[in-house]
């Protein structure tokens, strides 16, 4: 097969099925008169207007995208970063000490097992319904997967490497940086990946409870006012946000974990 044919083939394979699904959706709903299942044409038609147009022609800066989507994503990123920093720091501390681990593990297991959305009503008591509540909800929900995976990763470090580091008298900071964080990073990334999905869920949920702006808020608002095509456009937009975030995450992972992925690939015989 020539190179051009190969490229064509992979492009076809990638876009083929999604295209078929979209066309099917488009055709099947084209004459839909169902109130809840508007034609895809209508949804696409309202998409731009709903999210990117200003209410009264005041320009892009007043659009829902700037007013609702951007704040949501910013809250997600702040909560998520807090969770990463706190989770990795605590995780390294807990993972490095046997006694601390045994002491904290049952409590951590309990907190991890609490479905994170349940924390929203509690945090609303303490923090009201403002931005800080939402950031804290996201941070707390994201914390457990990162923390517990970091603990696991640190615990699973090769003891020979630890002894080597000690024999070479690596300082504490250097040990943490080059040995502990490096060695635990595959596990930390696994936790961070789980945390990202939890974070997106919490971003939406915290806005569905009580908010004055945000993506989740807008979608519920549309649903309650029976603006069905707009609601569908919101659901699609939320899906796109989720997909984009996971693409960014994968790019970051490949950059950070390049050495590990390459190592694994060579172990699997280049498969």
């Amino acid at each position, binding site marked *: 097969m020539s190179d051009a044919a190969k490229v064509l083939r992979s492009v076809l394979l990638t876009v083929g099925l999604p295209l078929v699904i979209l066309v099917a959706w488009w055709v099947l709903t084209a004459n839909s008169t169902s109130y809840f299942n508007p034609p895809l044409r209508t949804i696409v038609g309202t998409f731009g207007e709903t999210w990117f147009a200003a209410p009264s022609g005041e320009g892009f800066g007043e659009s829902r995208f700037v007013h609702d989507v951007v704040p949501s994503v910013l809250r997600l990123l702040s909560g998520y970063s807090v969770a990463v920093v706190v989770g990795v720091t605590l995780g390294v501390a807990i993972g490095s000490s046997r006694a601390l681990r*045994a002491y904290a593990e049952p409590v951590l297991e309990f907190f*991890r097992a609490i479905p994170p959305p349940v924390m929203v009503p509690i945090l609303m008591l303490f923090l009201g319904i403002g931005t800080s509540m939402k950031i804290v909800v996201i941070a707390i929900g994201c914390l457990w997967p990162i923390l517990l995976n970091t603990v696991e990763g640190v615990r699973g470090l090769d003891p020979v490497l630890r002894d080597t580091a000690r024999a070479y008298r690596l300082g504490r900071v250097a040990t943490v940086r080059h040995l502990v964080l490096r060695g635990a990073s595959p596990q930390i990334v696994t936790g961070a990946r789980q945390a990202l999905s939890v974070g997106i*869920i919490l971003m939406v949920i915290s806005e569905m409870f009580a908010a004055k702006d945000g993506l989740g808020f807008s979608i519920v608002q549309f649903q309650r006012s029976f603006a069905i095509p707009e609601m569908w456009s919101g659901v699609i937009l939320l899906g796109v946000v989720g997909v984009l975030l996971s693409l960014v995450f994968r790019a970051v992972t490949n950059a950070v974990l390049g050495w590990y992925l390459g190592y694994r690939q060579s172990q699997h015989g280049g498969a």
Partner: protein
Amino acid sequence: MNRVSGRRTPAWALGLAGVATLLLVVEIGPRLGIVDARFLPPTSQILAALADRLGMPEFWTALGQTLTTWVTGLAISLVTGVVLGVVIGSVPVLRAVTASTIEFLRPVPSVALIPVAVLLYGTGMASTLLLVVYASFWQVLVQVLSGVQDVDPVASDTARSYRFSPLTRIRTVVWPTTLPYAMTGLRLAASVALILTVTGELLIGTPGIGKLLGIAQSSGAVASMYAYVVVAGLLGVAVNVLARVLESRALFWHPSVRGEVAA
């Protein structure tokens, strides 16, 4: 925790001490006024509220409803995930064609479906089931897919040259390789399904523990709200423990049960 030697404090004692510390801090904090008792009642009041709930028939009904939704959703996603995963994974063409679609649909947050579910199914169990199945199906499917991909090519070729029928091949070659992955998928899906079950009850109002929590919240019954949170947490712990036991039971023959967890 087998490495614990006789001289050291055993792990379970330390763990117990950890739990005791938590209970003590929550008891003393509000009593000393460090935390507002209206927001965080002391442990004793939370436990009293919890004991109250345990005596109420509504509580047990709600618990049963939550568990029913959870089990049903999990079962649906497990069966569809395993079947589709094995079929798609064993047929290279299907795999290539569906890869991009799966990659696209998987990160779509399930809560995006809440408004759609409410419109289509109202506040009944079906609404929450939709969320639960959507969220946990991908966990199973993706794990099974990577499991099928992990099948040793030599074993697979050997089976083919002995002219095993496709079904026998799946049963004797594909399945043993896939099972550890499927169990990991089950474990992840079990806790995701619980999260979405309670979320659906809380936000949509499907009957269950989450709904009772929502009612406690809106009526300002803070202690019973905490009691429900504790119940939800214990439910989660039970689910995790159960999934782990099941995993090690099903994989007792597997040489590296431990190594698969993070893969």
